[in-house]
């Protein structure tokens, strides 16, 4: 099947990028504004126990895809054919008649807590199936993940890019007023579901960062009275303080791409510099040595370079240096201040927080500083994190005033589809983890 998929992708790349006349393909560019219409007939419950979960999975697959803003669901009330059986032949003319360009069909089996989901994707206007049938096995409790996996597969086949639905995000859950705010580490699915706390509120915690494989989280804790970096095992929820170079405060950590090292900021005598440390041994190397503030380091996907912020010019600006330190070149030159740079997983863009004329923005620019684009604007937008496929950015937005609260938002890298992540409490400092295996 894999060989067939590759052949199909090659075929699609070679062909014209017009969904109506060639094979179905949605090329995501800044120019895509009209969402691609798709239909998801209710997944077939293959036994009675599967009826409810089959309905739930169908709705979530549709919600995942339409939630991207790239796809538009055609309501079931418009369907001419029912396609109530997974095995039946597709009545393409009936789906063409309602302008469904893609049709997703599925079947669900439940035995005990075991859940099996099968799925097929059809290119309606070509009258062909896209890729082969796929089958996912999981638990009934974990039904949302099965739906996300189906939606990821459909997204991947139609766009040719990786998905991001079956992923999780660590963040800081907030409650209480501004002058007595309680902060706890928490984890959730990409859509805000299945939120769980990872720490209690006994100590102030900030800025969790997922490891590349999603097994651990680095974060900053004030449990000792000063900022220190902790590492948390996501499965056991055990934590330990990371050994860092001697200094009074260690913060702003991120994992290296292989998960064995951490790049972070260390403050000593009023000066803040960037260091790299080995997580197992604690051995550390200083990477910057200016008397200014150097913080918020983020590695390039190949691990060879670090983008960071520094006020060495007088205000916060973004710089890129070798992962081993040394000379840095400034990449931000627009009005205002540039902070919290994050290298995209594709390597082509830097997301950042920009502060200018009393407003905060989330923006992106190329790694040479060109093509700056601001995606958002508000009283306080801060701390972008990339979806695993580099298409979506999540960040925190805080409202102003005595009753100000923070929440998480996501926005397409195109600047479209800005929307809040539904959560029961305030939230800040999101870090998007990898697609789950």
């Amino acid at each position: 099947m894999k060989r067939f998929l590759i052949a199909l992708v090659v075929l699609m790349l070679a062909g014209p990028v017009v969904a109506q006349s060639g094979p179905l393909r949605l090329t995501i560019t800044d120019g895509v504004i009209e969402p691609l219409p798709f239909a998801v007939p209710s997944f077939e419950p293959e036994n009675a126990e599967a009826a409810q979960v089959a309905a739930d999975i169908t709705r979530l697959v549709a919600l995942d895809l339409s939630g991207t803003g790239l796809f538009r669901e055609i309501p079931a009330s418009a369907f001419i054919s029912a396609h109530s059986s997974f095995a039946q032949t597709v009545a393409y003319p009936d789906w063409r008649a309602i302008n469904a360009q893609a049709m997703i069909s599925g079947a669900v089996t439940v035995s005990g807590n075991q859940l099996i989901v099968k799925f097929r994707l059809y290119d309606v206007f070509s009258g062909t199936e896209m890729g082969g049938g796929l089958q996912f096995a999981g638990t009934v409790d974990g039904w949302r993940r099965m739906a996300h996996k189906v939606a990821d597969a459909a997204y991947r086949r139609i766009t040719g890019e990786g998905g991001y639905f079956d992923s999780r995000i660590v963040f800081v859950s907030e409650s209480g007023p501004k002058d007595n705010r309680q902060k706890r580490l928490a984890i959730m699915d990409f859509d805000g579901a299945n939120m769980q706390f990872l720490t209690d509120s006994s100590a102030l915690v900030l800025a969790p960062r997922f490891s590349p494989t999603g097994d651990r989280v680095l974060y900053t804790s004030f449990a000792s009275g000063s900022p220190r970096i902790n590492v948390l095992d996501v499965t056991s929820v055990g934590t330990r303080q990371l050994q860092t170079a001697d200094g009074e405060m260690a913060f702003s950590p991120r994992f290296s791409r292989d998960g064995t090292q951490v790049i972070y900021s260390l403050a000593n005598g009023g000066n803040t510099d960037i260091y790299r440390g080995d997580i197992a041994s604690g051995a550390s190397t200083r990477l910057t040595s200016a008397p200014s503030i150097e913080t918020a380091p983020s590695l390039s996907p190949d691990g060879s370079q670090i983008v960071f912020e520094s006020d060495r010019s007088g205000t916060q600006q973004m710089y890129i240096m070798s992962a081993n330190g040394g000379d840095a070149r400034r990449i931000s030159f627009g009005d205002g201040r540039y902070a919290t740079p994050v290298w995209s997983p594709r390597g082509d863009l830097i997301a950042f927080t920009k502060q200018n004329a009393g407003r905060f923005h989330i923006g992106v620019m190329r790694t040479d500083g060109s093509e700056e684009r601001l995606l958002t604007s508000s009283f306080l937008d801060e701390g972008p994190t990339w979806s695993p496929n580099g298409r979506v950015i999540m960040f925190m937005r805080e409202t102003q005033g005595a009753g100000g609260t923070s929440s998480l938002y996501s926005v397409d890298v195109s600047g479209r589809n800005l929307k809040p992540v539904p959560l029961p409490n305030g939230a800040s400092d999101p870090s998007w983890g990898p697609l789950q295996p």
Partner: protein
Amino acid sequence: MTILPKIALMGLIVITAGCTNPDRFTAGANDAAQAGVNDPTSPLFFNQTIGDRVLFAVDTSTLTDEGKAILDGQVGWLQSNADYLAIIEGHADEQGTREYNISLGFRRSNAVREYLVSKGVPATRLRATSYGKERPIQVCSQESCYASNRRAVTVISLASLS
């Protein structure tokens, strides 16, 4: 932990907040502050009469003349009350990103620490830290509140500085 000590602690916070309006997040650190405000050797006297904090202009860590006058008073108090240690907590207002504000708060607490040391307070009795923008004492989003939040607070302690 029974309820009783909790009530006692809450009472302490209410009392200190009512008398001196200290940083509420450090009220617990001033457990030793039970002697009366009229006792010049008490941390309460330090907080209220000497002045436990200095303020800063936007995005700076430069001590003002007014700030230096307060710190001169802190030097005198710390020299005549040699049993006490001090943790200097730097803070920033909410106009800035989280990591930068931690560093900025640290610049502020270090400016205070260096000034106190330059006037003769042993460095071993002083520790500087920062809470960035995480612990505002005024919650409005206007300069009137920001001005009080851009501060370095000298918290008197009998505990070890470890």
